[in-house]
């Protein structure tokens, strides 16, 4: 875990209480360990809402592992990605924030994809998710497109994204998702 806190400064300061924060190499072993810690921390407190927080956490940290431009072995796409992830507990919601560097040539594509998903009405998210799941069955896909939709679904559309130029021609990509602590009465 070679990273010091390089990226924390790009995240919005926590409003409530930080439940989990990790910055560094996101290996599979690390993901499993953090997920287990999260299960122990949140399972009893958040009830079924915990599953949404947990699901968003896993999608985001696996995205860092798979897609971050910064690798544990530089320029080796098979090595583990590096980034930051944080979960905080606020009065009305849990907030999950993740950030990682992305390649310069990926910025427009990711921005378009996020913009497209943000523009989907909430009631259409499920059908779009199912359609994309059917169309992305190839073994090589790690599922980032479906992953963004999954995050949109689990956060009930309460998610956002931002890009920061951080020098050296690098762009830092941040996703933030909120999960309400109590389900809305109109939820299905």
């Amino acid at each position, binding site marked *: 875990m070679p990273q010091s806190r390089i990226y924390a400064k790009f995240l919005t300061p926590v409003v409530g209480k930080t439940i989990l924060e990790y910055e560094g190499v996101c290996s599979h072993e690390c993901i499993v360990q953090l997920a287990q810690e999260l299960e122990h921390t949140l399972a009893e407190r958040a009830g079924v809402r915990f599953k949404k927080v947990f699901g968003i956490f896993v999608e985001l940290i*696996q995205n860092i592992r798979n897609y971050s431009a910064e690798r544990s072995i530089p320029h080796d796409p098979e090595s583990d990605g590096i980034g930051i992830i944080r979960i905080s507990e606020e009065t009305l919601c849990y907030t999950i924030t993740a950030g990682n560097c992305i390649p310069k040539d990926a910025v427009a594509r990711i921005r378009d994809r996020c913009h497209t998903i943000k523009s989907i009405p909430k009631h259409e998210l499920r059908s779009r998710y199912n359609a994309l799941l059917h169309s992305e*069955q190839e073994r090589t896909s790690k599922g980032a497109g479906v992953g963004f939709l999954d995050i949109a679904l689990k956060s009930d559309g309460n998610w956002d994204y931002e890009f920061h130029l951080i020098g050296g021609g690098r762009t830092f990509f941040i996703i933030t998702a909120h999960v309400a602590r109590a389900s809305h009465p109109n*939820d299905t």
Partner: protein
Amino acid sequence: MKSVFLPKTPETPSVRMDVAQAYIELEGNSYPENAFEFYQQIFDWIDEYFAHGADRLRAIFRLNYLNTSSAKCMLNFMALLQQYHAQDKIISVEWHYEEDDDDMLEIGKAFSVDFTMPFQLVPFSE
């Protein structure tokens, strides 16, 4: 043809593939490092099971959490079962979901619409 049991890990479900009782049961979380590799061994077992002359299989899913790669594998899983259903094998699927878990319910609902084999949505409470 042997029955096989894969124990549960934090990131993979337990998998019980039972030849004598003609069922396969998955229970737990699914976010493995390589979901396709993990599920392929199960698909291979099912192919071999039917190649040995079996005429039926009850598939029981009691999954707590699926990441998107695993959700794709579930879709492939259902497609495989549907393929045997189309070959006149007796297939039944039980999709168990925690009663307040709308995500697992909706995934199950989508499968029940997409495929014509017998498919049952079964709520449970913890």
